[in-house]
Each structure stands twice: as C-alpha cells, then as structure tokens.
C-alpha cells in the first residue's frame, strides 16, 4: 500500500469560523493521506470536524468559514490554489461527496430519474435521452428494483435506504477518483446499513475510487476501512492501519474511544456510574484540545501542541506522552 500513489494529501490545513469573539479555529493543522484505492475511515464525535474536513477538501465551506493555511494536494495539484472554475471541474469527476442527511442530497421537487440523468448530462455531456437511459442503468446497478418505475418517483416517496442508493447511483455516474461519504448510513436500519456498506465497497471495485468514510461508528471502521484517522476538536490525534490502531491505540483519546465501545457480540460491563460532564470541548487552547478530558494529561499538554510522531511506519500520533 505504501508504494502505491498518494491520491490525496492534506497537509496542515487550518480552518476558522468568523465569530463575534474573533476567529475560532475549527480545524487545527489537519493532515491526512489517502492512497490509491483505499478506504480511509475518518472518526470522531459530533463537532470534531469530520464533516468540515470533507467540505474543506471539496472547497464547499460555508461563507463564515475561512481556510487560513495548508495544502490539499489531489493528484498532484493543490486544490486550495485553484480558481472556482477549475475547482468545479474537479468536483464530481475528481472528488465527489455524499453529504450527511439522506434526503438533503436530493432535490425534493425533481423526479429521481431526472436527477441522476442530470449528472450524466453535466459530467459526461450526454444528450437528455442518453443521459436518462444511463441513469436508469445506474439505478439498476445500485439494485433499485423496477428502476424505470422508481425513476418517475420523487424523493419523499422513497425509503431512506433507497435515497442513499440513488445518491450512490449519482456517484457512479461521476466516476470520481475519490469519494467522500459523510455518515452514509446514519439514520438507516441496520439491515439496510449492511446493504449500503456492501454497495460502497462495490463502488471501489466498479470504478476504482478511493473512499473517505466519515463515521462515528468504530464497528463500521473495523469492518469497512483499511486505515483510520482519529480526529478530536479539529485536531488529528492518531492515524494508522485499522489493524494496528485497534490492536494498539497510542493516544489516550483513541484508547478511551475503543474502551467505551459497545458490542453486539458480548455484553460490556456498565460500571462507570453517572460519570462526569466533560462533553464540552475547548477550541481556544494552544495545546492539545483533548487535555481537558485526558486522564494522563501533563502540564505542557495545556499550552503546547504535541508534535506528530510516527512510531511505526503508517501509525502516527500527536501526544506528549508518546516520546
């Protein structure tokens, strides 16, 4: 895997929100790599900056967010240096994204056949008729039964699982090199989630795309991804192959995540008591943002950002405890 070409390289990207209290750094020197053909899990809690990382790569940040620094190298080109017009050519055929919230990605006023066809028209320049036929074909590919009939339906008539299939059909139409899938199974039932995860793995085989899978479910990461990036409050805490990171988590945050995970195949002891309320996250600190919740924090953790250390090839961590 290390010899294969790096498709995407995000280097020290800073993103801030403009607020009345001054800029708030929501992504703090985020770095990650995606190699050709791999599935990378991007894990973290709500508000950790997972989706924001995806939007930053797509250059689709909301107006109040500013990318202050960093490089996003995709196929050798820095996306942050492109004009909006050049970026548009990358979106879709270069990098495509499935956004969070199953129905938000579909236009509620358009029949789904027309929506998929539009992707073919715009991305591949097909005529309306050809695009529609191709659209039906890709709906069949994502196992929508009676695709021709369903193509005339509106999104509200579809179940959540079917909406997600339509979005995946649109991705197939784009044939992107990189797909960013933001919580693609959240809100779906588990048997439907299993179907969608299989479909996402199929995308890689069918069109050879690399995938960044944004999720908070470590079970999905373990069963779907090859590598994983753990993010907390806008800082990357640890990255590694799924097998090394799950076997030997180095960062206290990763350790706590893996330690608190519930499993279906065995009962987990519930001995924690009421617990303390440390869900609030401080974004305004010069040090490690996990320090406030860290059971083994050192004095320097509060004001000094730990350096990134690669303890084994491919398994890196940002923690003062790991020297």
């Amino acid at each position, binding site marked *: 895997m290390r010899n294969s070409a790096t498709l995407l390289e995000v280097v020290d990207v800073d993103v801030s929100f403009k607020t009345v209290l001054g800029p708030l750094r929501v992504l703090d020197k985020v770095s990650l790599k995606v190699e050709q053909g791999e599935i990378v899990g991007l894990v973290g*809690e*709500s508000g950790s900056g997972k989706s924001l990382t995806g939007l930053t790569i797509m250059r689709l940040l909301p107006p109040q967010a500013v990318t202050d620094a960093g490089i996003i190298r995709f196929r050798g080109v820095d996306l942050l240096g492109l004009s909006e017009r050049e970026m548009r050519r990358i979106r879709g055929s270069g990098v495509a994204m499935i956004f969070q919230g199953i129905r938000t990605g579909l236009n509620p006023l358009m029949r789904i056949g027309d929506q998929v066809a539009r992707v073919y028209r715009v991305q591949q320049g097909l005529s309306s008729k050809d695009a529609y036929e191709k659209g039906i074909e890709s709906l069949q590919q994502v196992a929508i*039964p009676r695709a021709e009939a369903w193509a005339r339906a509106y999104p509200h008539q579809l*179940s959540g*699982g*079917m909406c997600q299939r339509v979005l995946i059909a649109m991705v197939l139409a784009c044939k992107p090199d990189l797909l960013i899938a933001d919580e693609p199974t959240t809100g779906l*039932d*588990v*048997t*439907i*989630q*299993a*179907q969608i*995860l*299989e479909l996402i793995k199929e995308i890689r085989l069918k069109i050879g795309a690399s995938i960044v899978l944004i999720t*908070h*479910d*470590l*079970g*999905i*990461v*373990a*069963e*779907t991804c090859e590598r994983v990036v753990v993010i907390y409050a806008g800082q990357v805490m640890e990255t590694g192959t*799924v*097998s090394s990171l*799950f*076997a030997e988590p180095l960062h206290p945050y990763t350790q*706590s*995540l*893996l330690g*608190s*995970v*519930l*499993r*279906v*195949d*065995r*009962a*987990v*002891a*519930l*001995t*924690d*008591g*009421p*617990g*303390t*309320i440390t*869900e*609030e996250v401080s974004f305004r600190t010069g040090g490690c943002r996990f320090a406030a919740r860290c059971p083994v924090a050192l004095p320097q953790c509060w004001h000094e950002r730990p350096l990134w250390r690669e303890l084994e090839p491919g398994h890196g961590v940002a923690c003062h405890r790991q020297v």
Partner: protein
Amino acid sequence: MEPLLRIEKLTKVFRQGRHVLRAVDDLSFEINPGETVGLVGESSCGKTTTARCIMGLDKPTSGRIWFDGLDLTALSRRDMRRQRRWLQMVFQDPDASLNPRFTVRRIVTDPLRLVTMEGRGDHERRLQATMERVGIPPAFLSRYPHQLSGGQKQRVGIARAIIINPKFVALDEPTSSLDMSIRIHVLSLLKQLQEELGITYLLISHDLSSVRSLSERVLVMYLGRLVEAGPVEAVFDRPYHPYTRALMSAIPVPEPGLNRKRIVLPGEPPDPFNVPPGCAFCERCAEAAAYCHREPVQLREVQPGHLVACHLGSE
C-alpha cells in the same frame, strides 16, 4: 414471582381510509420487577407503539395490559392518571421532548407538581438528590435545553422520569441520538439507577449493542409481531429466527479481522399496510418454504424461556 407488567394479546390497529395497519399484532410478554427487557427491531416494527400503549398514550385496539395487578386498559382516564405516576417514559428525541422555553429546573420539577402533595422544601430536596443521581451539577438548573449537550439533555430526560419514583420506565431509544462514546455513560447511569431505585425497564432500541449490555431478556419484533424472545445470551449468541440471525450479523463489531459472516438481507420490509398472510418475514427470508408464505406462524418454545415464531424446524 408476580410480573410487574403483563401484556396479553396486545393489538393496535391504525386505519387510513380503507387501509388497515396492524402496528402491533397479538403481542404478549411479561416483565418481572427489577428486570430490564429489551425490545428490538427496525423502524416501524411497532416498538414505540407498544410503549405508547403501555403508557396509555395510545389506546390499544384489543388486548390487556396488567400493571401491578391492575388492568390499565380497563381504567377510566382519571384512574389512569393516578396510576401513571408509577409508569414513566424517556423519549427518543430530547430536542422534541424537552420544552425549549423551560429551564432544566422547571422541566425536572414539573412532574412533582402533578403527582405528589409535598411542600416546596421537599421538592427542592428531591430535585437536588435527583440531579446528583443523574450527574448534572446544580449550576445547570437554570440552563435551557439548547445550552446542553446531547448527553446532558438525555440525563435531564431521565431525571424527569425518575423524580417521582416510578416503578416502571419505558426507555424509547435513550441512546440513539448520542455519540458512541457518550452512550456507555448513559447506559451505566441507567444501570446504576436501576440498582439503587429498583426500577423496571423496557428498553426500546434498534441499537442492539446497547440492549446486549443493559438487558436480561430481549424481544425481537418484525412488522408488529414478535418473532423471537428469550434471555439476552440465548437470543444474541444462538439466534434461532432467520431475521434475528440477519439482524445480529448486520451490526459491525469493532474488532478488525474477526471475519464474521454477514447475512445481507435482500430488499426492505414489506409495506406495513399490506403484510403477507403467512410469516411476515417470508419475502426476505433465504430459507422460506412455500408454506411460510401461506400459513400464519405461532410462537413456540425452543429452549426454556426462548420463544421463536418460525415454521422452520417445527413439526
């Protein structure tokens, strides 16, 4: 031991014009005092409707609900109101169930105004004790729901349910709106409350991992019907019904390299307005025989306490 709650042939039918939806169909089960029973299944399988019938929020079409020796379905509205203090519910979506214009203090103390006849000082003491139990510092009492995190909101919902000392609490997806790392804290809290206060729980969830850790027994529903029921270990480790097997295998386990065999079910649950006459699961079942499509299934006991509604393996 006399069960605290006994559901007998509960059926709830919703009508929409000529169409009939059997949201809960001939459901029977018992919950013993101090026990946690998990009720699992996918969206629209009737989990929440079952809880709403028990709470008296929906009126059952037929069937009986025995609580502590009383038939709740036979009570007048007034008598039901009196009984309801023993039955409380924690709702699925804290954003919808906590009044955004009320402070935490108001939200949690409101039930006290409705049921007990104690003085103000007692209310205050009770409030303090409850908040300490659920792990919310007193400084939060003057906050509004939007100033709380997801886990804190759910703790407030739990505080409101337990402040009047109920015997039974229906937990409707108490952790599904929460991050994975917060879920275990809320489940631990629920477990501790049960040990201290002896509350009996019905835990409704599609998150089977939560159910595994908190419940002693589990009920699996599909399209309004019970398909499997039994002790947690038996149902999770040796699931009998093809639906339960698929459900268990569909949940990813956070351990790389386990190589579990995942059963991916084809299609989606059938239209609940138009359930097949035989086994409701037959259309997605890989093992279904011709008679599965025709003959209704009955629950039968495959092991002591382990019930299954499946034609396969029956004589």
